[in-house]
């Protein structure tokens, strides 16, 4: 039981990311409104970003900006003192991708709206079926 609890608490971030991902995925699949789907898509993407950031965390480490002095005698930098910067870099890219996708998705959604005058998927499909 205790071990189970430790599992729950020790990986809290991971559980949350899974939850968020499920929320996002659910919204993308099951929601009827196109903008809601887009919101879901962004939540889905942010969840993955959260996951990546969580992998980079190190207990007892600080942000990855190296403290340095311009004296020659600076002490050696220890990797364990700084949080892993690599996931951050990757996720910067991922955020950019998500905002780019968002822009395109919204543009397309606006086009859809102007053709069918609704954002509800079922209403659109109904219009397609009975023109």
């Amino acid at each position: 039981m205790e071990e189970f609890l430790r599992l729950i608490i020790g990986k809290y971030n991971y559980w949350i990311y899974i939850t968020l991902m499920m929320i996002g995925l659910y919204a993308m699949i099951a929601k009827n409104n196109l903008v809601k789907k887009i919101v879901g898509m962004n939540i889905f993407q942010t969840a993955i970003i959260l996951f990546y950031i969580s992998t980079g965390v190190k207990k007892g480490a600080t942000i990855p900006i190296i403290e340095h002095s311009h004296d020659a005698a600076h002490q050696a930098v220890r990797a364990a003192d700084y949080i892993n910067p690599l996931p951050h870099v990757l996720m910067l890219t991922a955020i950019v991708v998500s905002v780019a996708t968002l822009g395109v998705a919204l543009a397309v959604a606006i086009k859809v709206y102007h053709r069918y005058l609704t954002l509800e998927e079922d209403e659109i499909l109904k219009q397609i079926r009975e023109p």
Partner: protein
Amino acid sequence: MSEHYPALLVILPLLASFFISAAGWLRPACCFPLAVAALGASLLVSLGLLSIVIGGGPVSYRLGGWAPPWGICYQVDHLNALVLAVVSVVGFINLTAARTHVKKDFPERAGPFYTLYVLFVTGLLGMVVTGDAFNLYVLLEIAAITGYALIAMGKGRAPLSSLNYIFMGTIGACFYLLGVGYLYIVTGSLNMEDIARLLPPLHGSKVVTVAFVIMMVGIWLKMGFFPLHAWLPNAYTYAPSPVSSLVAPLMTKVMVYVMIRMVVTVFTVDYAFGVLGLNEAVVWLAVIAIVAGSVLALAEKDVKRMLTFIVVAEVGYMVGGFWLGNRPGFTGAVLHIVNDALMTLCLFLAVGNIVYAKGNSRWESLPGLFRTMPWTMGALVVGALSIIGVPPTCGFFSKWYLLLGAIQGGHYGFLAALLFSSLVSVVLFFRIFEMGYFEPLGAPHGPTHGQDGTTTVREAPLGMLAPLWITALGLILVGLYTGQIVGRVIRHAVPAMMF
């Protein structure tokens, strides 16, 4: 200079796309020549790269001068050199055909169109050439975003289909990204070869298993593998002609390449076929994909839409062939990437011509086409024969290897599915030919359309016919050179573990 080829391959079209975009504002007439120059250059580079790889084995290139796994590196071996050549050839040929469509349908948006076109090809080339799992994701997104926009340009339902594609594509890409993340969390690396080096001790890990599964699902989503194909037919049908003849041949094929690359280079054949033992199940999925794709195609009354279902079936060919896990199956799958890209290009270009002349490609517009558009229909016949698998068109040879793989692997379900889909293709295409040939029906011995020429030939312009026929002849040439392609390229790409 030749040592910079891997970088130049991607950089040249990338740089050109910025100039094209600017030219769209400043001097719209320059857009098309710039695009042709860019893709032509990258075509030459990719062919050069192919010959280098054939001559001297794999090439690698460190971007920014950093050694992998710290920096990103490009890794060109026999497998991706071949796919690179295919991507650049298809991109280039289709570009030359696109001009007429653009002039007719959206002349005022030529600048952004060519920009996105070139970026799309850049993205695909980058995906194929890269040796870094995360870099692949970024390029995948470039290809995807440009693809979404290009598809959404179409008329009618295109925006809705594109939106659907955006959702599915994003899920697919994110699953892939998640898979990369899972690999990262257990190995700490993003470089494909480095991951492969670190993975064997971790084969028992649940994380690796899930990474594999989720990555495959993501890739399958992107390639439209059967139960995950729902977005594909609409997106490809409603896209403008030059876009569907670009996206349909390339996107799925490149994703198949990505799948092969991931399994072979990252997870290794040993793991995917040995430890997990999923092959049987995946091949059966492929069987379902082939059968379902073929049957669904039968129900369609629009040539373009029918072709999209054929694409779904063809994806089944490649996935199934690869997952047979033996040498002929692998050869067949890789060969089919090449052949199918060319075949679908040929068919979609031909349909593009029909759409250009008739406004749509539904059955109503088919009757009498053999008379009014003989050249287009001739090329369509060549493409169809290739899909059916008639020698000496190239489609026969990949089917041959796939069949051989199925027999060698003892997988008779796959064999039956391949034959079934070939037969269905016969029905599908001859239905079209019949309509183009017979209708309007003549009375027996009463020549309604005699030699005196009651119907006139109204062909598509030469700018569209020439690329079409180059592709059609290419199908036959590639077929005759199959021995060379397999012997000098694909044979070296087959993992040593396969037999």
